[in-house]
């Protein structure tokens, strides 16, 4: 790993006109870390993700993948550097079969990248995410929660080192959320994948991650273990106080 973090953001800033959606956020992510990102609505979580995956060009700061500067590069280069993501609303290729959706990533970013046996081909990936029975169905025909799993499968097909998950548990039942958390843990444990996970349901997230970043109005206000973060007065005031009271 030549001493560099897997992914490092330095003073990353995204501005939309007068609005600063992400305000000079610095963070580094090490191999096989399981990190959560929380923050109230409009805190800039998804925009931060978009910048980390190259979907949204940063207006300031820099991004490095294993020491290599990716600032301003198009999204496909991030994918080829092993940075994969899911989208909040599943964006599967509805007309293609579930297996072909997974095959897409294997044909492009995943092509020629080192792969563990779990990410060998469509079959093994579908096995991993638990959709082998749906392989031949059109992706538009499977349930929304299956589409969320497929989103992850598509990202895994790029054979990533780092996986960005944007609210993959939103709208799932209690049992499905638990299964999703198990899957994410498994990806980290068995594939040594770094996972950065945004979730709106804070309590769920805090139970499963080892480190939490808290964003508030585009700024990073805390970065530590879940138990540290929930005791952080700034976090409690900005966010957790009323949110926790709600739940």
């Amino acid at each position, binding site marked *: 790993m030549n001493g560099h973090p897997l992914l490092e953001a330095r003073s990353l800033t995204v501005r939309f006109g007068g609005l600063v959606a992400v305000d000079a956020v610095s963070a580094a992510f090490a191999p096989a870390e399981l990190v959560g990102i929380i923050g109230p609505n409009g805190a800039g979580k998804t925009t931060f993700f978009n910048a980390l*995956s*190259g*979907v949204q060009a940063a207006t300031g700061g820099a991004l490095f993948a294993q020491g290599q500067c990716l600032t301003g590069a*198009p*999204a*496909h280069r*991030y*994918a*080829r550097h092993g940075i*994969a*993501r899911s*989208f909040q609303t599943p*964006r599967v*290729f*509805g*007309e*293609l*079969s579930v297996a*072909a959706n997974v095959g*897409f*990533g294997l*044909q*492009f*970013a*995943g*092509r020629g990248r080192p792969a563990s046996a779990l990410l060998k081909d469509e079959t093994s990936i579908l096995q991993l995410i638990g959709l082998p029975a749906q392989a031949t169905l059109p992706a538009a025909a499977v349930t929304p929660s299956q589409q969320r799993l497929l989103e992850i499968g*598509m*990202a895994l*097909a*790029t054979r990533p080192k780092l996986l960005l998950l944007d609210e993959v548990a939103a709208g799932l039942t209690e049992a499905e959320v638990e299964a999703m958390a198990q899957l994410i843990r498994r990806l980290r444990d068995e594939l040594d994948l770094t996972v950065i996970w945004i979730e709106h349901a804070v309590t769920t997230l805090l139970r499963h991650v080892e480190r939490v970043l808290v964003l508030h109005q585009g700024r990073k206000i805390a970065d530590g273990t879940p138990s540290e973060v929930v005791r952080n007065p700034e976090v409690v005031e900005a966010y957790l106080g009323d949110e926790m009271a709600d739940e």
Partner: protein
Amino acid sequence: MKRDWLILIALTGWALALPHYGSDFAVSLALSCLMYAALASSWSLFCGATRYLSLATSAFFGIGAYTSALSLEHVPFAVAIALGAGVAALVALVMGAAVLHLRGTYFAVLTFGMTELIRHAISYWEKKVSGTVGRVLTVVPERDTVYLAVLALAVLALATAIVVRRSRFGLALAGIGADEQRAQTLGVDTRRVKTAGFALTAAFAGAVGAAMSVRWTYIDPVTVFNPFIGFQTVLIALIGGAATLWGPVVAALVFSLLAETLRLQLPQLYMMALGLLLILCVLYLPGGLASLRLPRRRGAAR
């Protein structure tokens, strides 16, 4: 896929035999049909898959026609066609760099604007620089040579479409059409794929223009950059089904027959029939005529 090749071979054989028994009228009808089959198939190859609606076909067609008119005195017909394809592809690379980051209406309008720009630039150059109003082609190949050349281009366009649909390049084009940003996050270099696809389409339009220019013996910008060529290509592709392989070919056949039977007697009726067909297709058959028998294909599609 094997079936597609068999159909292509059968159609080619039929078209090859036509000049030997058909009348002059039949051959000229077949020629216009082949021309639109080549244009619409190659248009669909890029525009149908990616859903980037290009109205620049007449620009590339005209560039090809001019290239061949200028070079035909010095080089053989086949080389003139290749040159036409090459120049059109080069122009498409430049044009693509300027407009391929736009989508939807913006892309369509800009490609049309650039087509007009090219037409007027060439008209201006003709008038002011070379002092001519058009080009008289003195060396022209025989009727059957032109027919065979356009037939070869149509077959090549369809063969390319068959191959591309099964290739990574074709998958990338389809991914761009379905969700461009998603395709990009899965590793598709969308800019390069789009530019290459656009240039490939342009090369075919340029080649067809180069081959067809000799039919007119006299060309000027108004004839060869006629926007109608571009519109008709798009209409044929959309009405036939731009996402399919054979839809554009079937529609090209229907259109050529319609054009020849109606245009001479009742030109207005032809245009009205065209417009009506388009409206009906957009409203009731968004997948084109080809979707009338699609249920079987869906499973086989991938």
